[in-house]
C-alpha cells in the first residue's frame, strides 16, 4: 500500500517529557529509536508552569534519576531557583521544587537525545497498523509508513485537542501548536476506549510591564541543593519568583463575568483536575476566602515572559486583562499569552498492563498525559518505564514492574492500571502508603541497583552510588557506638535529639558527607515507624499477591456484594490486592479469599 520510509526498533510518538525519557531509555539500552512529532523544534516544553518537583513529584524525579533517567540532570542544568517544601514536616514528605529556565531545560534534553542517537522526525501520526495482534509501525498524514515493532504513544494533550478561551473555541494544541487529528479514530479502530479530560493554564505577562517593587520576593533555599544524585549541590539566588494575593476587586470582576466562563456555560465537557482549579472555580467554590495567593515566576533567567501561578483561567481575554490588572504590581501588565482551558482525548488507563503495554496489542505502549495523568514528572516516569519495558521486550526479557512499596513510580503506574482515573492524575504524597520508606533522598539506595541491572546506570553513576552506599554502611556502624552507655542509634529515637549532638564524641561521624549523615539520622530516628511500614508492606504482600484466576466469574461466588461483582467484572483485577484497589471492600475480598481457598483445596487453583 504505502512504501516503508524508515525502520526502527522503537518509535516514540510525541516529544514531551514522557517521549524524551522513553526515547532516551530505548536508545541507551542499545536500540534504534526515532521520535515522530508535530514540531521537532518543540522538545520537552513546559506549556504550564516552569517548575519541576513538589510534594510527591520530587520523589518521582529522584527515582527517575536513580534508575538512570534524564529529568533530574536536565532540571539541575536549568534551575534558576530551588527550594525545599515541607522542610519541617518530616523526611517522608520533604520535597524539592525547582523553578527552571524552560529554554535551557529543552536545550539540555535535545542535546541528550542527539548524544543518545535518537532520530527526530516531523509528522502527524494518523494510523497504527496492527497485524496478528502486534503493532507494525505508524502511518503519517503524508502517507509515509515507518516500521517499528515497538511503538510508544506519548501524545500528551494533543489528541483532538481544542483550546477554549471565553467563547472562543478552536482546534489546537497548547501554545499555538496544532492538534493531533486522526490518531484518536485509529486507536478506537484498534478497540481502545478513550475518554476526554480538561486542564488549563494561566496567562503569561510581559516582564517589563510588572512593577516588581510592589511584590514580595520569594527566595530559594540558602543552602546548596540538587535534584540528581550526580549533581553538585548549589545555591541559587536569581530574583525570579515573587508573590502577591488576589483581592476583593479581583473576585468581583470574576463573579460579574462567571456567565462568560466556558466552565460554567457548558462549553467545557471534559473533566478537570480538583487540585488545579481555575481562579474562577476557586472564587465560586470558596466564596468565604477573601484572597488567594499568586506567584509570579520568570520562565527563564532573562525571560521577557512571566508565568502567573494560581491564576489558571479560561475566561474571555478582556476579563483576563481586568483580573490581572486588579493585582498589586500588575496595574499596567500586558498579557502576552492568555490563559486557556484545553480539552483532549486520553486512553482509559485500565486498558494498560503494569508494563504500560496496551492489553491485547503486542508492542504498543502509552505513557504520559495520554494515560490520564497530569504533570511533567508523572509523564517522564511513565515514559522511562515504557521505554525500559519496550527495550526489554525486544530482548525477550520480562518487564520491570515497580511495587507500591518500592517507588512512587510503582504507586503511579499501579494506580493508573488498576483504578478508574476520573480526573487528571497528579502524584500526591497521600497516595503513597509507604511514604516513610520512599523518601526522596533514598531513591538511589532503593532503585539504582535495579537501574544497573536494567543497563541504564552508567559506570560513573554506579561508582557514585557504591561510594555512598559504603559510607552509609560505615555511618550505620558508627551509630552502634555508645555514648553514656546507650547506642547513639537508640538515643536518636528521641524526637529532639540530633545527630550533630554526637559529632564531638564520635568524630568519625563528622567525616561523613552531609547527605549520608542526614540519611543515617533519619533511618535511626524513624526506625520504629519505618519498620512498621515494612511489616505492613509484607503483610499486605501476603494476601494482596494472591492471584485471581483469569476468566474468573464473580457470579460463581456466593455472598459477594453487587458492587464487588460489578467491579470484579469491569476491571478483572489480577490479584486480591488489585481487587482492593479498584474498591472491592475488605469484606468482599475476604469472601473472595475464602472462596479461592476452597477452590484451591479441590485442586482447581493454587497461588503463585
Amino acid at each position, binding site marked *: 500500500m504505502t512504501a516503508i520510509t524508515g525502520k526502527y526498533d522503537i518509535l516514540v510518538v510525541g516529544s514531551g517529557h514522557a517521549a524524551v525519557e522513553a526515547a532516551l531509555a530505548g536508545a541507551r539500552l542499545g536500540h534504534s529509536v526515532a521520535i515522530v512529532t508535530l514540531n521537532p523544534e518543540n522538545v520537552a516544553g513546559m506549556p504550564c508552569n516552569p517548575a519541576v518537583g513538589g510534594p510527591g513529584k520530587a520523589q518521582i524525579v529522584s527515582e527517575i534519576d536513580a534508575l538512570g533517567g534524564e529529568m533530574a540532570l536536565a532540571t539541575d542544568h536549568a534551575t534558576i531557583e530551588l527550594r525545599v*517544601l515541607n522542610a519541617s*514536616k518530616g523526611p517522608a514528605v520533604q520535597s524539592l521544587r525547582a523553578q527552571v529556565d524552560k529554554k535551557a531545560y529543552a536545550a539540555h534534553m535535545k542535546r541528550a537525545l542527539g548524544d543518545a542517537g535518537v532520530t527526530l522526525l516531523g509528522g502527524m501520526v494518523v494510523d497504527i497498523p496492527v497485524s496478528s495482534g502486534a503493532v507494525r509501525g505508524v502511518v503519517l498524514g503524508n502517507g509515509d509508513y515507518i516500521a517499528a515493532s515497538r511503538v510508544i504513544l506519548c501524545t500528551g494533550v494533543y489528541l483532538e485537542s481544542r483550546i477554549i478561551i471565553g467563547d472562543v473555541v478552536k482546534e489546537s494544541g497548547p501554545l499555538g501548536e496544532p492538534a493531533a487529528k486522526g490518531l484518536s479514530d485509529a486507536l478506537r479502530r484498534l478497540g481502545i476506549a478513550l475518554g476526554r479530560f480538561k486542564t488549563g493554564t494561566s496567562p503569561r505577562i510581559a516582564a517589563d510591564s510588572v512593577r516588581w517593587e510592589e511584590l514580595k520576593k520569594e527566595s530559594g533555599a540558602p543552602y546548596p541543593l540538587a535534584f540528581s544524585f550526580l549533581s553538585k549541590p548549589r545555591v541559587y539566588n536569581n530574583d525570579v519568583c515573587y508573590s502577591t494575593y488576589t483581592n476583593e476587586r479581583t473576585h468581583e470582576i470574576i463573579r460579574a463575568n462567571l456567565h462568560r466562563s466556558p466552565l460554567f456555560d457548558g462549553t467545557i465537557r471534559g473533566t478537570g483536575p480538583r487540585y488545579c482549579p481555575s481562579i474562577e472555580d476557586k472564587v465560586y467554590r470558596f466564596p468565604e476566602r477573601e484572597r488567594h495567593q499568586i506567584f509570579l515566576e520568570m520562565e527563564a533567567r532573562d525571560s521577557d515572559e512571566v508565568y502567573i501561578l494560581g491564576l489558571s483561567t479560561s475566561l474571555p481575554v478582556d476579563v483576563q486583562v481586568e483580573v490581572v490588572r486588579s493585582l498589586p504590581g500588575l496595574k499596567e501588565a500586558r498579557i502576552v499569552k492568555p490563559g486557556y482551558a484545553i480539552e483532549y482525548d486520553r486512553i482509559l488507563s485500565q486498558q494498560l498492563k503494569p508494563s504500560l503495554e496496551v492489553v491485547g496489542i503486542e508492542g504498543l505502549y502509552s505513557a504520559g498525559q495520554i494515560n490520564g495523568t497530569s504533570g511533567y514528572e508523572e509523564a517522564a516516569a511513565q515514559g522511562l518505564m515504557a521505554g525500559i519495558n519496550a527495550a526489554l521486550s525486544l530482548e525477550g526479557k520480562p518487564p520491570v514492574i515497580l511495587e507500591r512499596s518500592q517507588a512512587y513510580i510503582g504507586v503511579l503506574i499501579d494506580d493508573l492500571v488498576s483504578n478508574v482515573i476520573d480526573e487528571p492524575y497528579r502524584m500526591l504524597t497521600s497516595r503513597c502508603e509507604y511514604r516513610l520508606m520512599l523518601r526522596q533522598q533514598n531513591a538511589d539506595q532503593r532503585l539504582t541497583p535495579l537501574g544497573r541491572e536494567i543497563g541504564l546506570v552508567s559506570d560513573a553513576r554506579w561508582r557514585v552510588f557504591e561510594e555512598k552506599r559504603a559510607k552509609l554502611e560505615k555511618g550505620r556502624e558508627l551509630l552502634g557506638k555508645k555514648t553514656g552507655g546507650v547506642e547513639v542509634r537508640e538515643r536518636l529515637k528521641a524526637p529532639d535529639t540530633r545527630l550533630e549532638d554526637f559529632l564531638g564524641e564520635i568524630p568519625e561521624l563528622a567525616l561523613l558527607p552531609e547527605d549520608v549523615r542526614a540519611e543515617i539520622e533519619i533511618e535511626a530516628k524513624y526506625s520504629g515507624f519505618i519498620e512498621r511500614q515494612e511489616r505492613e508492606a509484607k503483610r499486605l504482600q501476603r494476601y494482596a499477591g494472591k492471584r485471581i484466576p483469569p476468566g474468573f466469574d464473580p457470579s460463581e461466588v456466593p455472598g459477594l456484594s453487587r458492587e464487588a461483582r460489578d467491579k470484579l467484572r469491569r476491571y478483572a483485577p489480577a490479584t486480591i490486592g488489585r481487587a482492593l484497589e479498584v474498591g472491592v471492600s475488605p469484606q468482599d475480598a475476604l469472601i473472595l479469599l475464602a472462596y479461592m481457598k476452597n477452590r484451591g483445596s479441590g485442586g482447581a487453583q493454587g497461588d503463585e
Partner: protein
Amino acid sequence: MKMKDDTIAAIATPPGTGGISIVRVSGPDALKIAGQAVRLRSGKPLASLKPWAARLASVVDARGAQVDEALVVVMKSPRSYTGEDVVEIQCHGGRLVSEKVLALLLEAGARPAEPGEFTRRAFLSGRITLEEAEAVLELVEAPTEYSLSQAAKRLRGELGQRVREWEESLYSALAAYQAGIDFPEDVDPGLERATREIERVHREIAALLERAPLGLALVNGIEVCLVGPPNAGKSSLFNALLSAERAIVTEVPGTTRDVLRERTEWNGLPVILLDTAGLRETSDIVEMIGVERAEKAASESEVIVYVVDGAVGLTGADRSWIEKWRKEGRRLLVVVSKADVSPRKAEEEELRKLTHGSFVLASAKTGEGLEEIKTKVTGWFSRGGEMDLLVPGSARQVDCLRRASSSLGEALSAQAEGWTEDVVVICLEEALRALSELTGKNVSEETLEQIFSRFCVGK
C-alpha cells in the same frame, strides 16, 4: 447456587456444656453422610424428613450397633444457617458420646470443620455481610434477653453508625494535615482543630472499649469458677447460685471430683458457673486428678470465687491461694461460707486487708450474700448500670477498635513529643485502616475527597 465446597462436620456446642450436645454436618453431601450414621425410627431415609422438623433416631456405627439415641433435624439449602444442606444431630450425654458421633460422620466422608468455618460458610451463602454474620451468630447463640437486644442493635448497624461518625471526624483531621503537606504553598490547615478532633475520637473509642469486656461477656458468657478447700460449701453455693440442685452435696469432704459447668444468668449477663473439687493434698488418684482440674479451671476462668470455710476460718492454705491469684491480677472474689452457722471465726479485718475489700459473707442456706456475689461479679463487666449502652461485640470488632485507639494514642503522643507531621499522619492512617476493616473504605481516596472539598488548593 453453586457451591463447590466439601461437607464438613463438628460438635457445635461448647465443650463441657452438659445435657445435650449438637453435632452439625454441613455441605452438599450432608444428608448422604449423616444418613450412614443415623437411622430414623420410622425407617424412612433421612432425605424424606420435612425440613426443620425434629425426629428421634438411632446413631449407629459401621457394624450397625447403636451408639446413642438422638434427635435429628434436617435443614435444606438455602434455608439453613450455612446456606448449605445441614443435618444437626442432638445427642445425649457428654463429650465422649458426641465425639463418637462426630468420628462416625468423619468416617462416612465428612471433613472436620476448621474453627469458624460454619460462620464463614454462613456469610459465603449470600444475604449477609461480615458484621451482620457476626450479629446473627450471636442471635443464634445469644444466651440472655440483654444479649439479644445487643445483637439486634448491631444488626441494625448502630455500632457501624458510631464508627462511621468517628471515621468522618478522623478523615477531616487527616485531610487537614495532608492538605498542608501536599499543598504547602496554598493551605493553612488549621491543625489545632484537627488535634481536638483526634482527642475526642480517641476518648470516645476508649470509652467504648471500656465496655468491651461486657460485650465479649454478653456473647460468650462469663466463666466464674468456685474453688476452695474441701467441704467449704462450694457445691451448696453452686446450687444456690444456680437456683437448682445440680451438684451432689454431702458432708463427706471430696464429694465433687470432676469440674461441673452450668449456664445461668446474673443481672442479665450470661454466666457459666464452675464447681470444682476441693483443693487439698490427697492420695486418692481420682481426687488428685480432680484437684488438678480445679486448679486448671480456676486459672482459665475469668472470675475466681474463692470459698473460705466459714466454720474453720482462714487457713494458711487459704492465704497462699488468695495471695497467688491476687498477685497474678486475677478477678478474685473471696466468699466466706456458712455465714448462718459460723461464729465468724474468719477475722473480717484480716480478710479486708488480704482481699482489698473484695469479699462477701454468704450462706447457701439462708441466701445471705448471694445477690452480693452476683452483683460484685457482674459489676466487673458492666461497670455499674450502663447496661443499655452500646457495647462492641465480637472479638474482631474489639480488635479493630483497639488497634484504632492505640494508633490514635500514638498520633497524639507523636504530636505532643514533637515528632514531625508525616509521623502523625501515618498513625492517623493506621487508625483509619483499622476502622475501615469495619466499614470498608479506601483511606487514600477518602482523604483526597476531603482535601478537595474543604480546602482551596492548587495552582
